[in-house]
């Protein structure tokens, strides 16, 4: 099962059908999300046969553009609409990832989505995890989708 391929397909589908924004996949091999600056992260926990987290890390300027396109209105800063939109992106991605993992015999439950936002932070797991990271590009900049699954 190529989970990265599934994440790419799901992200492109979500952005084309609901956000109404063109995105492309970056071929860069990303090993770690590293230090995130002026960014917002939407995340959803996975529990059950396997545990993990699905996160989408988006620079503020890109999150504002995404939210504006998602809602069809001008957004002038990081506000509740942006936080909610990013959380909902994580929610939809989490749902798609769950469907793939369940197809492959895993029993998974999803948490409710949550977001964190700040000037500088790092998103790390304290456990031994297998990471899949994919960078996507938009007209406003790039964002990362990260899946961490406990080994």
């Amino acid at each position, binding site marked *: 099962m190529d989970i990265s391929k599934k994440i790419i397909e799901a992200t492109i*589908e*979500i952005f084309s*059908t*609901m956000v109404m924004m063109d995105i492309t996949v970056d071929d860069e091999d990303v090993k770690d999300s590293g230090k995130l600056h002026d960014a917002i992260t939407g995340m959803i926990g996975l529990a059950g046969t396997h545990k993990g987290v699905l996160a989408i890390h988006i620079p503020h300027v890109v999150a504002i553009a995404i*939210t504006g396109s*998602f*809602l*069809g209105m001008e957004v002038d800063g990081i506000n*509740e*609409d942006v936080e*909610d*939109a990013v*959380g*909902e992106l994580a*929610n*939809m991605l*989490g*749902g*798609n990832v*769950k*469907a793939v993992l*369940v197809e492959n015999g895993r029993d998974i439950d*999803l948490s*409710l989505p949550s977001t964190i936002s700040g000037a500088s932070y790092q998103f790390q797991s304290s456990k031994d995890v297998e990471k899949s990271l994919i960078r996507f590009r938009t007209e406003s900049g790039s964002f990362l989708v990260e899946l961490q699954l406990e080994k």
Partner: protein
Amino acid sequence: MGKNVLLVDDSSTMRKIIGRSLRQAGIEFDNIFEAGDGLEALAILEKEKVDIVLSDINMPNMDGISFLREKSNRANMKDIPVLMISTETGDDIIGEAKSLGAVGSIKKPFTPDKVNEVLGPLL
């Protein structure tokens, strides 16, 4: 007289998207009520005339399955159709929703065409 719809989702973004999709699908409602969870949805159904409910499954306070269960116990609202709109696609959870009276489901993400295809025949 036109129809009224109740949108139930803890994401205000998603409620706006569903509203937009209804308009793009050419489905008109006189009133679009909104609720953030099953408890709010029940409160609205107690006082407003609603012809159809579009509900998420995973929500805080009262999720979509619990909402269906409680709604089915109330004579004044048990016959109002509920269409699930959710990231959940598993046969077990969708099957449980249908056993509690849900008339169908739409998976997120969705297009206006999909909304029209599933919702249109129910109106």
